[in-house]
């Protein structure tokens, strides 16, 4: 069954202290060619029936993202694709 994936990211103009802290730590691991890091959240939604993008968007707008400071995207993925994302 396909799932709906919601990616929530801070809006570009909003400060991301987490991403900044990670970027600043990278040189200690010998990584020097990273310009910036931004951290977001990925949320996977499984519907009981057919995945409903409109519904997912509504959930994202009302609950998953804080529209004052965050943007989100909604997309469909196959179940195995979801698994791949973790590998």
């Amino acid at each position, binding site marked *: 069954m396909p799932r709906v994936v919601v990616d929530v990211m801070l809006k570009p103009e*909003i400060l991301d*202290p987490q991403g900044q802290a990670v970027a*600043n730590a990278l040189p200690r691991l010998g990584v020097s060619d990273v310009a910036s890091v931004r951290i*977001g959240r990925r949320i996977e939604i499984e519907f009981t029936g057919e995945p409903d993008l409109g519904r997912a968007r509504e959930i994202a707008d009302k609950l*998953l993202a*804080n*529209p*004052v400071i*965050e943007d989100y995207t909604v997309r469909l993925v196959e179940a195995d694709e979801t698994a791949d994302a973790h590998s």
Partner: protein
Amino acid sequence: MTTHPDPATRETPGGFPAAPAEPLAATVATQPGPVGPTRPVEPVRRPDQARPAPTGDWAHGLDTVSRATDTPGELQPYAELGLRDDEYDRILHILDRRPTQAELAMYSIMWSEHCSYKSSKVHLRQFSEKAPPSDRLLAGIGENAGVVQVSDELAVTFKVESHNHPSFVEPYQGAATGVGGIVRDILAMGARPVAVMDPLRFGAADHPDTARVLPGVVAGVGGYGNCLGLPNIGGEVVFDPCYQGNPLVNALCLGVLRVDRLQKKEATGPGNVVVLMGARTGRDGIGGVSVLASATFDEGSEQRRPSVQVGDPFMEKLLIEACLELYDAELVVGIQDLGGAGLTCALTETAASAGTGMRVWLERVPLREASMEPQEILASESQERMLLVVSPDKLEAVLKTAEKWGVWATAIGEVTAPSPDGQPGRLVVTWRDQLVVDVPPGSLVDDGPVYARPMREPADLILLQADRAETLPRPSNPEALRETVLRMIASPNLADKTWVTEQYDRYVLGNTVLAQPEDSGVIRIDEHTGLGVALSLDGNGRYARLDPYNGTKLALAEAYRNVAVTGAKPIAVTNCLNFGSPEDPGVMWQFAEAVRGLADGCLELGIPVTGGNVSFYNQTGAAAIHPTPVVGVLGVLDDVAERVSMGFVPRQAGEHDQLFLLGETHVELSGSEWAWVTHQHLGGIPPQVDLGRERQLADLLAEAARVGHVSSAHDLSDGGLAQSLIESCLRRGVGAQIAVPEQFADGSMPFVFLFSESAGRVLVSVLRGHEKAFTALCAERGVPWEIIGVTDQAGGALEVRGQFRIGLDELRAAHSATLPRLFGGSERAEPAQPTPAKQADAPVTDEAEPAAEPSAGPGDAGQPAGPDQR
């Protein structure tokens, strides 16, 4: 941000000096900025990088001073920025030309209500004019925060500020950055921040939007303060429908400094380097000061969604440590925090207060977004930044310290000399060699408009005052009284606030001697001598609505008494004045009355106002909040080991302490919590306030604590004696037996005895064998007293003879269930057994609070991805 304006006006230029004398030679090396192993950051923008096209309505390229001179007729969007016609004319007059975009942004910010205090200035003067003499005050009104000397070596600084509007828009970040802002004010005085407190006011407890705002605000206060390592030692959580569309989020910070470490904000010494330290500058809260902080909420505010500032407490922690290291090494000449008005405020205030000028290369400011315009950089409210003035030979050492702590530090300009004719210097800002700002700094700081706005007593006040709560039906039999007791302690304003306060770290730094729910927070500031300070913040919007003059005095009296019950000697006052729109004559009258009340009250008590903050435009549509002056009082304890807690002390079997009620109880129910909870009634005249008696009471309590007569002391305020008795019982699980005095025996008088909110009263427990000495002391100090009962550990209940007996378990269950029920966290009800008190003399914390099994609460996914609170 500045505090209440300095009443002393500085000389400001009458004429218009020509362009500054050759400040353009760059003697300051551009600093690469960051730094070190922890923060090896890439340059944000290369000098050769193409400048993107400007945005917004003024798409004419860079608006330079010469362009402004050449295009005098070009339309300026001053009205959109909140400036009035006459204010704009004044700018034209000061500059003798139209302002550039950058200058217009700066004037609009600095002349906003938030920064200029233009409506409040004429009233706030009373705080200085009526100030009682004090030889402790090292810095007062007009500084970032008042500084009070407490020993030969040590001083403390404290201040409370509002962050109301941002917290309604984005509760978590609004509250978090409110804490961050006040902490930087304290840091700028040269002090190490050592504690925070937060008076919070929300709409009706059961309103759905309160369920959005409160958890976010509490998490924000905790998230920032906890991550900064500052104990949260007290505050208020108040619910009232008047705050529904306009919650009040006030934040206080307390700092400690060595007297010789006091820092100044003056940018003295021409040739000194101006350094920006801390976070990079982004588009946070652009226009926030003039648009967000001064605009009233209306239907459109949810759509407007202005750019919210995001706090980074980790950066602030590093900034604190870096600044303190700079102070210790005596590396800075002047320092100012960047608050609501960002770089604009910091540059103009530091220069204006020294009478110097300043030359700033704006492109040197490290940016988060390369496309930022000069006016955006000047207006940005990005958090966690400080402006330093450094002598050139110390610059290297300053940058090294910043590097050690992993914060950016960049030389962005230099101090310039006043003009040879004695006029103050000018603030000159270039953007890639183009002149974009050339202004007299004092014109932004001191020459803003000042309004004596029309005032009129609200037309409904007479009727409101005539509608007295003393005429409402009262419980007059034991069953009704018992029911009232249980209902009142469960009502949102009187209920246990552990749900809120356990989200705050009260232990960090290891100097917290008393914290919430005690009457005051008490912090040890010297481990060797035991010297400490007590702090309390109080306000009562209902009282102030009924009578702003006396309502404000009542808030002062309560904070003063709350400090006194710990045994501390009150010495200084701060305030946060939350009101509706100053353009409403009724609100302006309330404000004027409140200020007059506070100034008069401080004079009567003999303690000065050291600083504070005004927040106007707290209203939704035409409906203003109750006038809500929040008053903070600071006291000194020579030895914190002598502090007195509010909890009854456990005794061995058969032993008990005697309970004394100090002060006089009258039939005073108007504006009371009971009238509101039971009858949704607000009317009448609030309780009388007699500050002379408060003073006698405070003297008595300090002496009794010092001699060791009293084992507990608890202020009586909202909810009256019943509330104080129950809180003192539940603190350490010790019951009490109370006999209603004869004059309160009949009819509904037992109810009056328990629920009247007469001021100037304290419940104390007196150690066996000390009664005679204590009553003699009361007589000597002229404080009325009455013995009303005894503590009773074995009984495990609060018993009011002839009326009711309620087990402590039942009281605790009623008292503690309300907030979890309203705001989730869905605590499993646990048997209400206090955990054993390990140390009889360590009543600091909620020992009596049983740990509960957690269960997953409602997700807070709506919360921004701030730092996880650990």
